[in-house]
């Protein structure tokens, strides 16, 4: 395993992202929505870290905070050794080309009044000083890379289908040769038959350009296909982080177990024999999380200690981390 000790491209330590709640005439600060509450993880070069969880668990907030699209509340984010959690203004702007994002809804993330060429070239205009012909050459190169027809460069986003629009978003993210890309639910808005096309494209690009992905998704089957390692979030915290096969074959945290058992399998003979863990109730509000373990209100294996102490996010070796009192 010695030659496998790669340096992490991204190192997140104790990241907190709170959104303040103000109330009354004087806009008094009355509390916080703790969207991301003390999470730590590393992403190694060339890998895909899957970040899964249900809506409202803070996975998108985490992805945006890591890219510094927000001013983080606390914690450290190191991108290739540079501390970016506290950077501001120009210093942060100079680092932007290194890290890019692919958004969920290609309809909403592309400007309807700009042509495909100007959308893809916008990051180039902002960060690089290219001549007219160089700029167009780069745009065509990117369109080829994502499988868009060059003849469509002067069309507008509404003339494309959902899958093709997502390709435009991917081309824009690749324009500045980033090392690290956050993919925030990039396939959730697409039809099943189109999802596979986009996922294969992302995998091809990763191989060709040596990209590192943080792949945020609620689709556990797709994450199993794509990810090298997987982090599971619940109510602002990472409850389990493990290499892919270990997590899917032997989930340790009761939430991960319930989540995996809830995914319907497209095979009726398996579906009828599988054991399902049906969780009771709903996710508590992140502005008022329960005392102790965040999962204690729904956990089928809850103990007394879970309602008092917050479980530590423990390293179990072999790249496995879990935050649960059951595992010691």
């Amino acid at each position: 395993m010695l030659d496998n000790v790669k340096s992490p491209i991204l190192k997140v330590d104790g990241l907190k992202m709170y959104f303040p709640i103000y109330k009354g005439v004087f806009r008094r600060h009355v509390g916080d929505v703790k969207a991301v509450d003390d999470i730590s993880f590393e992403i190694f070069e060339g890998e895909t870290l899957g970040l899964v969880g249900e809506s409202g668990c803070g996975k998108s907030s985490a992805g945006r905070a890591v890219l510094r699209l927000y001013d983080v509340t606390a914690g450290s984010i190191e991108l290739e050794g540079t501390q970016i959690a506290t950077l501001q203004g120009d210093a942060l702007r100079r680092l932007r080309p290194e890290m890019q994002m692919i958004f969920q809804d290609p309809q909403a993330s592309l400007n309807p009044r700009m042509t495909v060429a100007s959308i893809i070239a916008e990051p180039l205009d902002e960060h690089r000083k290219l001549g007219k012909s160089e700029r167009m050459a780069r745009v065509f190169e990117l369109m080829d890379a994502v499988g868009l027809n060059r003849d469509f460069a002067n069309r507008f986003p509404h003339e494309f289908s959902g899958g093709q629009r997502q390709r435009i978003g991917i081309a824009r993210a690749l324009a500045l040769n980033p090392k690290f890309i956050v993919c925030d639910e990039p396939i959730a808005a697409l039809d099943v038959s189109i999802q596979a096309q986009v996922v294969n494209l992302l995998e091809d690009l990763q191989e060709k350009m040596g990209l590192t992905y943080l792949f945020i998704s609620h689709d556990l089957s797709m994450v199993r296909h794509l990810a090298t390692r997987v982090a599971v979030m619940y109510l602002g915290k990472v409850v389990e982080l493990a290499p892919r096969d270990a997590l899917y074959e032997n989930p340790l945290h009761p939430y991960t177990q319930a989540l995996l058992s809830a995914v319907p399998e497209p095979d009726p003979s398996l579906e009828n024999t599988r054991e399902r863990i049906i969780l009771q109730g709903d996710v508590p509000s992140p502005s008022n999380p329960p005392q102790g373990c965040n999962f204690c209100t729904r956990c089928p294996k809850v103990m007394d200690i879970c309602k008092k102490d917050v479980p530590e996010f423990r390293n179990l070796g072999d790249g496995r981390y879990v935050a649960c009192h059951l595992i010691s």
Partner: protein
Amino acid sequence: MPDGVEPILDVTDLKTVFGTRSGEVHAVNSVSFDLKPGELLGVVGESGSGKSVTMMSLIGLLPSPPAEVRSGSVMFEGRDVLKMTADELREIRGSRIGFVFQDPMTSLNPVFTVGFQITEPLRQHMGLSKSEARTRAVELLELVGIPDARARLSSFPHQFSGGMRQRVMIAIALACDPKVLIADEPTTALDVTIQAQILELVRELRQKLGMAIIWITHDLGVIAGIADRVMVMYGGQIVEQAPVKELFRNPQHPYTRALLETLPQIIGARSKRLRTIEGQPPALHAHPTSCPFRARCVHAMDICAKENPAIKTLSGDHDVACFWDADSGERRDAG
């Protein structure tokens, strides 16, 4: 399901067309199927395949214009629904045929309490008094597993979570004890753990109440766990129809086969690369004279461009509309 059971709903040759500025869109093309009492029929297809429009046409829920049901018949309890007047339709909708929509937030009225919205069909269709209707509403909310039902009657939809709202929708659909329940992507907007709760609830309710259900979804996993029979739609047509186990074990249509292969699985072997279906779904601007899946089909033959294959019964209860024979890998014998 034994043969000879009278279907509760019998749809024949249904065609629905939308008039748009850029011409007509043939959203549903000659769809025929039936639904037997107590059966759960799953309908799968991509967006634009016509699965929702088919079901909306059945009970006259499409605004006209732009929609126009051009031909067909829908027999329900001995009468043709498509020939009914608006008043007759209103009597059936919500009482004999219930409907659950995808997004519970937009299908519940935000300015009325949940109690009002559940009692409304009870008072309209069953002529219950206010207090009788309230008692029944409490029963219904308890049936769908909402805790503290009596107190929640005076809550507004925004005070419920997504899963709870969908339970309320189901309670409203069940209020008048319908014979048929049409559920249009009822769990698509929900998280997986909440989806698991709703699926479990529907399994329970079927055993208790025994109504027939049409379940529209694009998620083959959900279908595998819940349906008795599956209908696959593509380009406004039914391309394959079979009992659930048969369909997953022995898919015949190239589209069904490709769809099953593109799905990554949560257990079992992991494929190195996902299979894809290249290309885009058809635009449906003209009445189809050829197979709608032709352009994306790996088995397309000359005949597929000339004729639209009719749906044919292969064996028992398995129907498919395709010229290509999956077993021999050649053209299916005519006749």
